[in-house]
């Protein structure tokens, strides 16, 4: 049977894959893909807790997951708009070459 630990292990593996992608991509859109994967793993954990953990109102975890999805959509829209604006300025979205603020 599925238990809470299985869900949490899947979420942890997904989180570490997303962390690796977010830290190691050169392209800014690739970094954003890693961040979305990490948010997905957090949502998976929330749904797992809502399903398996004793709570006075068990729907709360799913409501929180809906809020996380909302904020992730807003964040993705702003981040991709930033990527397009930076590309217009510098002709690149390679995060290694965007070092204007580097000392």
């Amino acid at each position, binding site marked *: 049977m599925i238990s809470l630990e299985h869900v949490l292990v899947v979420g942890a593996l997904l989180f570490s894959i997303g962390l690796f992608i977010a830290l190691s991509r050169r392209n800014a859109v690739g970094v954003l893909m890693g961040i979305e994967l990490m948010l997905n793993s957090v949502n998976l954990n929330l749904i797992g807790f809502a399903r398996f*953990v004793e709570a006075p109102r068990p729907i709360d975890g799913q409501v929180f997951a809906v809020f996380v999805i909302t904020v992730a959509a807003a964040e993705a829209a*702003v981040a991709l708009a930033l990527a397009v604006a930076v590309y217009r300025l510098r002709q690149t979205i390679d995060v290694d070459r965007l070092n204007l603020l580097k000392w």
Partner: protein
Amino acid sequence: MEQPAVIVAFYVLAGLTLLSALMVAMVRDLIHAVLFLILSFIGVAGLYVTLSADFVAVVQVLIYAGAISVLMLFAILLTPRSSRDNSSVSYSAPISVVAGLIGATIVYVALNTEWAKTADSSDSPFENTAAEIGKALLDPYVLPFEVASVLLVIAMIGAIILVRPGNEEDAS
């Protein structure tokens, strides 16, 4: 919940999700990476269904697999002269070590914690989640709900202003 089909579906979907997430890290072309990302999002939506969260699964397919992936494809296609390959930085080996250590720590903590589980977890505590989530959004969570709508409006206006051509001083 205890049907064997659900359990098999959970493990198959978990494998699909993790494999396609790994392929996002491995594949060379950025467009292919987005396509594998969509597959991973759909796998997570299937996992939500096996965890009896049907409304969140539908929202996941609509927002992540629909909207956010299309936004990413647009962002890649609107930056044509930037490098299209999905290459990683030169110091990716220590990053993989750090990510593996953090993942191992989370797995260790998850397996060694005494979670306050429900006594009888074989059947789901939810009947139909859409109506329950709607009631929860409009009764105890009405303030975060309104704040989220304001946040979405701000993000939309901000994205439009950021990508508008000639966004210097010519607007009035």
